[in-house]
């Protein structure tokens, strides 16, 4: 017996280290299925991650993989993509990784429109370090460093990416794994900076502190708090409170960074001078 | 000429002293075939702060790259003059811009005063060539580098558009030097 997944993973690394019911594995499956549909050559794929539970993803896939430092996956990936623009570079980040320590890199990667796909697994908490609140922890929810409830306002990652200039922006959930996989597929296929945020569950850190005892409870909660774009548009401002909209938000064609840099090379060489 | 000559071009940021230093070092090092080092000391501000460009010229390999005791000092501001004249060699040469430097301490027979900035403005309609006129005067007075070398260096370091005016400014400097020498 063999599944599609088996063609893309490093089997010796399984079972994975994630907690029972952790959404990271669901997202990993969604990514692999998207790649399989695109029929990409494994030798041309580079997966880059930062630090955190979700960043362990790179250890599990049989591509060229790089598990880098906390928050810095995007600049590492930028270097790889600049060096070899033909490589297909996927960046997987957690919510803290991407929006806190790596927040600056995130907006600048979007601004440059470098041809990377950023997949953010948003479980709204720092899972690996024990449930501290992140910039994406909903206001009022609890974390080990928010024992009286979180007073911070959260980022809307999709709007942030949109404002910063990403070419493709979408949001899915681990509950709607099939939709997430197709959003990821479109993002991977998109030239330019593409972003897919996947709302995910952390039953151990987030769930326990916020009265959701099991992975099943968490998935039900995710189902409850997310709505499609169509439904969202019909909601009043009050009804929108505490809800997250899913679907595709941006899908535009804009010249990516490597393509623009080709123009620089052409210009520099035409100007001649010190060729060395 | 001494084995090692130390030149200090001082004034404030924006007067083109660093470029003047580079041109002098290039004249000595590349076109006269000597050894030369140019360095600078400047503050954080791009314009207006105290600025000092140093050039060491020698027939041999240069070890210490900075000025130890100044042989030739150009002072384009009063502050620079006050500050750096203290480090001038006993037989060192001082060239000060008399438009700006009004108080010159210890005037000797090696002190030269000339309204360089004013002349630049009058003759060329711009203060920008003050540095090149100054170089012309220094070379004319001291022969620290050959006239051919400094001409080549000026041409190689200024923008093509500004070549002609800078060449003229340099020649003017040479002539000013001649006058200054005859006056002494």
């Amino acid at each position, binding site marked *: 017996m063999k599944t599609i997944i088996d063609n893309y993973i490093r089997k010796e690394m399984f079972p994975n280290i994630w907690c029972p019911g952790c959404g990271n594995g669901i997202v990993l499956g969604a990514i692999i299925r998207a790649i399989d549909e695109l029929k990409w050559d494994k*030798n041309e794929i580079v997966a880059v991650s930062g630090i955190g539970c979700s960043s362990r993803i790179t250890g599990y896939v049989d591509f060229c993989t790089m598990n880098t430092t906390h928050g810095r996956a995007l600049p590492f990936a930028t270097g790889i993509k*600049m060096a070899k623009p033909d490589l297909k570079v996927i960046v997987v980040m957690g919510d803290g990784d991407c929006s806190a320590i790596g927040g600056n890199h995130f907006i600048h990667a979007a601004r440059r429109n470098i041809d990377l796909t950023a997949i953010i697994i948003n479980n709204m908490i720092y899972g690996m370090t024990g449930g501290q609140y992140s910039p994406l922890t909903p206001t009022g929810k609890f974390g080990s460093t928010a024992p009286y409830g979180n007073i911070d306002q959260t980022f809307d990652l999709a709007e942030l990416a949109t404002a910063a200039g990403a070419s493709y922006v979408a949001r899915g959930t681990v509950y709607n794994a099939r939709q997430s996989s197709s959003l990821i597929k479109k993002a991977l296929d998109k030239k330019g900076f593409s972003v897919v945020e996947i709302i995910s569950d952390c039953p151990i850190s987030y769930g326990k502190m916020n009265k959701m005892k099991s992975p099943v409870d968490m998935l039900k909660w995710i189902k409850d708090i997310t709505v499609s774009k169509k439904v969202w548009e019909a909601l009043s401002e009050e009804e929108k409170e505490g809800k997250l909209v899913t679907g595709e938000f941006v899908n535009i064609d804009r010249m990516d960074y490597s393509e623009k840099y080709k123009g620089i090379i052409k210009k520099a060489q035409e100007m001649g001078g010190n060729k060395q | 000429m001494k084995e090692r000559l130390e030149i200090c071009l001082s004034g404030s940021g924006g007067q083109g002293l660093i470029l003047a230093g580079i041109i002098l070092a290039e004249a000595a090092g590349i076109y006269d075939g000597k050894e030369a080092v140019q360095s600078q000391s400047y503050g954080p501000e791009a314009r207006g702060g105290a600025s000092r460009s140093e050039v060491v010229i020698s027939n041999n390999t240069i070890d210490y*790259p900075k000025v130890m005791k100044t042989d030739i000092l150009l002072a384009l501001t009063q502050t620079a003059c006050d500050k750096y004249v203290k480090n001038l060699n006993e037989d060192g040469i001082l060239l000060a811009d008399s438009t700006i430097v009004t108080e010159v301490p210890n005037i000797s027979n090696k002190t030269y005063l000339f309204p360089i900035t004013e002349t630049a403005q009058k003759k060329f309609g711009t203060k920008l060539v003050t540095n090149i006129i100054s170089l012309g005067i220094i070379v004319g007075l001291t022969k620290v580098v050959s006239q051919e070398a400094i001409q080549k260096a000026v041409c190689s370091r200024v923008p093509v558009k500004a070549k002609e005016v800078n060449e003229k400014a340099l020649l003017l400097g040479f002539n000013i030097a001649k006058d200054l020498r005859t006056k002494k």
Partner: protein
Amino acid sequence: MNNQKNIKLLQGNEACVEGALLSGVKFFAGYPITPSSEIAEGMAKKLPKIGGKFIQMEDEIASMAAVIGASMAGLKSLTATSGPGMCLKQENLGFAIINEIPCVVVNAQRGGPSTGLPTKPSQGDMMQARWGTHGDHPIIALAPSTVNEILTLTIKAFNFSEKYRTPVILLLDEVIAHMREKVEIPAPEDIEVINRKKPTVPPEEYLPFKPDEDGVPPMANFGEGYRYHITGLVHNYKGLPTSDSQEIDAFIRRLHNKIEKSIKDIIIIERYLLDDAKIALIAYGSVARAAERTVKLAREEGLKVGLLKLLTIWPFCSEEVNKLAQQVDLIIVPEMNLGQMVLEVERASRGKCRVVPYGRVDGELINPIEILGKIREEIKK
């Protein structure tokens, strides 16, 4: 044209650019900072002319990351900064060390701590170069003292980095970074350029962190058919995280040993009038040039003073210093800090002679006269 020498008046930072280009650099990522910005400017201008890539990143952390990424994808990569930026690069520098990713990092030293003295020189980062990133790790750091040496040591830095699969720090200071001197730019055919060892086995047999006899594993670039994992976690031969204490121990020791066993190749020093010396100066960078003049001045007074000039500062030339300590009565260590290299000299001397620091931290280059004064003062003691 070949027999005609290509001599130019170059700024130190410009010479670094020329050296990097001669070494085959194809990628630069950086962030503006005084006094190193001219390196970024030179790279921005010249790299695209040869089909290379330049990128100005959002910060120093990102610059270091991008350089490592580009090197993994096969390009020789460079970044340049100064003290505050160097602080920010440290974490990713450690990542390059543990993953044995070649790259060159220039630190044009300025006064510190913090913003310190942006336009003035210092040698305050010598210990940071050695111990800046956390963990027990080796490092190679080179310190030129002339503009010409900046060019030649930049080439060396790339070569060491490729040969030993390690980041190499090129430690400049504001004086030499900004100073202009005559430089003879060698013809490409006249310089030795070393490139990283590639695997000779097929991808299915490749173990990315299994060393050859020299302690250095062959390196496959991303996108060449060798799929493997890179991680900042301590890893096994396959590149996968390990918690096996034997594997961990062997790995960390190998990182050190690959540098240690090649110390003869890596350490570059110059001895100046040391053969009959009774007093030795040990210096590097722009201070070494002051010290050289001091030696001449002292010799004129009949004092038997010599200079040991270090071009490689890490690994430290302990053996050479130990031998010197047995020969001379006194070693003076002039440096633009309040005692960093002198600690290494004391350690290496093992009490065989008197070791005296001479520090200056006012943002000005130490001058030969003051070192001579220090010698006179110490002789009287």
